């Protein structure tokens, strides 16, 4: 992985031109909402991956990287929207510059473009999870087990594990589904065979007993055993020596006519009629509600689309897609139709016996038609036409859609037309009139028909056997994969669970020192339960506060990243996460990041000044490793609290006679700077729980503290015999007092006329000197050389010195102890 040394952003998102020097260390970006923090996060992500997550995915329809990543004023110049990232690759000990613009987002200029460098950067680009926002953090904690598993698997790059499992399950289900119609068909052909054999139960013994009785009549050898290729009429033609003209086998025909009449009674029965009426009613309700009827159609359309995705092109419109994104999109859409799918399943289940009955009826009508043709009965043509219409209706019911056609198909399906009944009667009359065959002829017909039906039965049985083998095989393969993946993931999650619990205990050691968590993977799901003060294990959202949930999200993320990258976890962007965590725990979070991940560079954004201060106090970030945005506007982008800019801006406002604006700006800047100075000088400020400190609360305390510190330093210098240094400090204190006197800050409480609230009422000529003296006051608290605040070290405990970064001021605060 990498560490970021510097970041330059030009005409990108809300930023016009900004450079940050991160120097490979932790860095914080602070600013209220809408000041441009997220632009920095977007820029880092863009530089490293060529993408901006926030501009893609759910709820971002119509937004594209190319059109919307450039600053709005450069939207037609995507080449101008650039991010230049200088990074250090610790494993290669190489500095690398990545220069990427929006126009050529997929072709960054990388210097040096060595193979090993490109390999590392490619690896980074595959890990956009280095950016963690609160939205993602919450998803780890408060999602359903199914969604959490997806989130975590995406983070661990395990999506393909779930993809393979889903595909294997789907194939297994499809194979299983193929068995049902084949089983129905087998039952049907078995019934036909039994009818032909004139036996009630299908077994080798019974079959051979019946067949051999006929063979005996024809003086054919009995069949000893029934093998897969045994012919029941073996020797029949050879024995007779002639080829018979095809005739109607009377006995079989009588049995078939009896069966078709039974089926007509079944179809016309009150049970079938009421079932059809019930289904018609339900389908009519479906059809009358456009939401449902369209929903059923859309659901079927999406289901078909899902099965047809097999490459990078949409099967419907040929648009190029990432197949995973397209599948995800369609699956999301299908979720809206879950209720409709359920209702459809119920109706389809009710249709099953009707469809089976129609299949049998069709089959028997075909036999009757065959007899009618042989008998040359004119009305037989109606049976063929009727059978075609039954076939059409059955196929329509199997298709289910369109609903109106299914309703039409069901209407009158239970009524067999008069001409069909007449045609069947005609065939029956003809068959009955056929002279009874001789025993030998009947036996010959028997063997011929039984052989035909046995062959059909064998063929269907073979197809069913093959389908059953496929279903068994695919189920076995699916179950094996599910079992293996669960076992492996279980061991992964056990490790993550251990690290997560340990990290969480670091933050909450005071009240949850025995905290434990359980990550429980099951097929496609990841359960997450946490200990609640020894009272049992519950989902994180059950009893823990929002702040605790936030810290759980962070700890789970860190544990997962630790597992994912191990020692290569060198870089992460935490985008305004942990906003719900209270002050006490924030310090612990900072400590956690600092101590547990010392090799990882964290870039943190926050809208909370106090959070920023905690990071500095704990030493997670150094004093200078932050940028503090004060405002954002579309022309300039984010503006930080920079003295040079501020005095110029105030001057400009005064020139325009905009005293209201100038005084507001001066006041807000002085508030910001006073807060910083109080922090650096360790001034005592009256505590406010709401953290809403005003200028009057801060600046007088900052001034008196600086003066006291100069006094203390002067006394210390004298105690050590450093006369020159003491005099220099005295001179500095005197000059400072003079500036303070001019500023009237110390008179604010006793003379309301000079209070900062009155600045807004001053005229241009009166306000300009106020600004000048405030500027001098601020400058007197800064080192003119290194431009850093004077500050006390250490930040806590006994004060040792007051200094600036370049040590132009470096005054000891500890007096020499008198000799005993």
């Amino acid at each position, binding site marked *: *992985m990498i560490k970021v040394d510097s970041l330059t952003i030009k005409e990108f998102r809300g930023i016009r031109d900004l450079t940050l020097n991160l120097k490979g260390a932790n860095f914080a970006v602070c600013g209220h909402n809408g000041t441009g923090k997220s632009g920095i996060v977007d820029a880092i992500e863009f530089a490293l991956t060529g993408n901006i997550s926030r501009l893609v995915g759910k709820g971002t329809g119509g937004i594209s990287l190319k059109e919307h990543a450039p600053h709005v004023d450069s939207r037609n110049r995507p080449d101008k929207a650039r991010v230049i990232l200088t990074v250090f690759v*610790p*494993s*290669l000990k190489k500095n690398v510059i990545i220069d990427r613009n929006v126009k050529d987002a997929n072709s960054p200029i990388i210097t040096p473009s060595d193979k*090993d460098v490109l*390999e*590392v950067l490619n*690896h980074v680009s595959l890990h956009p999870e280095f950016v963690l926002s609160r939205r993602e953090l919450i998803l780890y904690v408060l999602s359903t087990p199914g969604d959490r598993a997806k989130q975590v698997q995406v983070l*661990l*790059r*395990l999506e*393909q*594990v779930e*993809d*393979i499992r889903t*595909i*294997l399950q*789907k*194939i297994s289900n499809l*194979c299983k589904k193929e068995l049902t119609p084949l089983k129905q068909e087998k039952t049907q052909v078995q019934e036909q065979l039994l009818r032909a054999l004139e036996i009630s139960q299908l077994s080798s013994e019974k079959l051979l007993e019946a067949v051999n009785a006929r063979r005996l009549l024809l003086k054919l050898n009995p069949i000893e055993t029934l093998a897969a290729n045994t012919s029941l009429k073996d020797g029949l033609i050879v024995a007779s020596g002639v080829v018979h003209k095809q005739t109607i086998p009377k006995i079989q025909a009588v049995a078939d006519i009896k069966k078709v009449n039974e089926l007509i009674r079944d179809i016309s029965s009150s049970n079938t009629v009421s079932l059809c009426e019930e289904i018609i009613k339900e389908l009519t309700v479906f059809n009358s509600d456009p939401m449902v009827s369209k929903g059923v159609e859309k659901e079927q359309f999406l289901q078909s689309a899902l*099965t047809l*995705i*097999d*490459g990078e092109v949409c099967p419907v419109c040929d648009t190029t897609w990432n*197949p995973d994104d397209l599948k995800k999109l369609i699956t999301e859409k299908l979720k809206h139709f879950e209720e409709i799918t359920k209702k459809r399943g119920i109706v389809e289940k009710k249709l099953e016996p009707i469809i089976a009955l129609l299949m049998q009826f069709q089959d028997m009508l075909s036999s009757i038609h065959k007899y009618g043709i042989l008998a040359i009965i004119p009305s037989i043509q109606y049976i063929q036409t009727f059978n075609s219409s039954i076939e059409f209706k059955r196929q329509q019911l199997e298709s289910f859609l369109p609903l109106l056609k299914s309703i039409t198909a069901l209407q009158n399906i239970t009524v067999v037309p008069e001409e069909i009944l007449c045609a069947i009667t005609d065939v029956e009359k003809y068959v009955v009139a056929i002279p009874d065959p001789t025993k030998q002829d009947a036996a010959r017909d028997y063997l011929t028909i039984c052989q035909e039906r046995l062959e059909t039965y064998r063929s269907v049985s073979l197809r069913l056997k*093959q389908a059953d*083998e*496929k279903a068994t*095989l*695919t189920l*076995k*393969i699916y179950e*094996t*994969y599910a*079992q*293996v*993946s669960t*076992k*492996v*993931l279980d061991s*992964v999650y056990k490790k993550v669970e251990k690290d997560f619990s340990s990290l969480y205990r670091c933050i909450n050691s005071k009240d949850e020192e025995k905290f434990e968590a359980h990550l429980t993977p099951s097929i496609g799901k990841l359960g997450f339960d946490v200990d609640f003060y020894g009272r049992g294990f519950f989902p994180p959202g059950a009893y823990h506060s929002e702040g605790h949930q936030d810290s759980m999200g962070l700890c789970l993320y860190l544990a997962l990243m630790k*597992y*994912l*990258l*191990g*020692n*290569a976890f060198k870089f992460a962007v935490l985008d305004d996460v942990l906003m719900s965590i209270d002050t006490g725990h924030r310090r612990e979070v900072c400590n956690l990041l600092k101590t547990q991940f010392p090799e990882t560079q964290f870039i943190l954004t926050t809208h909370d000044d106090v959070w920023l201060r905690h990071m500095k106090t704990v030493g997670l970030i150094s004093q200078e490793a932050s940028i503090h945005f004060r405002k954002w506007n579309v022309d300039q982008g984010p503006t930080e609290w920079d003295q040079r800019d501020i005095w110029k801006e105030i001057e400009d406002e005064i020139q325009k006679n905009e005293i209201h604006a100038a005084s507001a700006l001066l006041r807000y800047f002085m508030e910001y700077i006073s807060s910083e100075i109080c922090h650096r000088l360790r001034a005592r400020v009256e505590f406010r729980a709401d953290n809403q400190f005003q200028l009057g609360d801060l600046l007088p305390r900052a001034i008196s503290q600086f003066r006291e510190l100069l006094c203390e330093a002067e006394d210390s210098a004298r105690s050590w015999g450093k006369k020159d240094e003491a005099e220099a400090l005295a001179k500095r204190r005197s000059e400072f007092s003079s500036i303070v006197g001019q500023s009237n800050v110390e008179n604010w409480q006793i003379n309301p006329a000079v209070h900062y609230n009155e600045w807004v009422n001053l005229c241009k000529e009166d306000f300009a000197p106020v600004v000048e003296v405030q500027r001098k006051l601020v400058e007197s608290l800064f080192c003119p050389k290194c431009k850093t605040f004077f500050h006390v070290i250490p930040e806590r405990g006994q004060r040792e010195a007051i200094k600036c970064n370049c040590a132009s001021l470096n005054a000891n605060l500890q007096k020499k102890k008198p000799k005993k």
Partner: protein
Amino acid sequence: MNKEYSQNASSEVSDTIVEEFLKQLADAKISENIINQLRKLLLEERNFTESAIKTALLSEDQTQ
């Protein structure tokens, strides 16, 4: 691959699962042809499409 991130590399978890899966299929006496086709798809070609996996599982001549 850089040694630094060869440890715990994410694809290794997926590949570990596939390797163990294929081993268990062999133990369960699943056809060698199917196992070889799955290995080629999932580990070499990294092809995770439904149609390819379906073909690998079901293309075997069932009459044999």
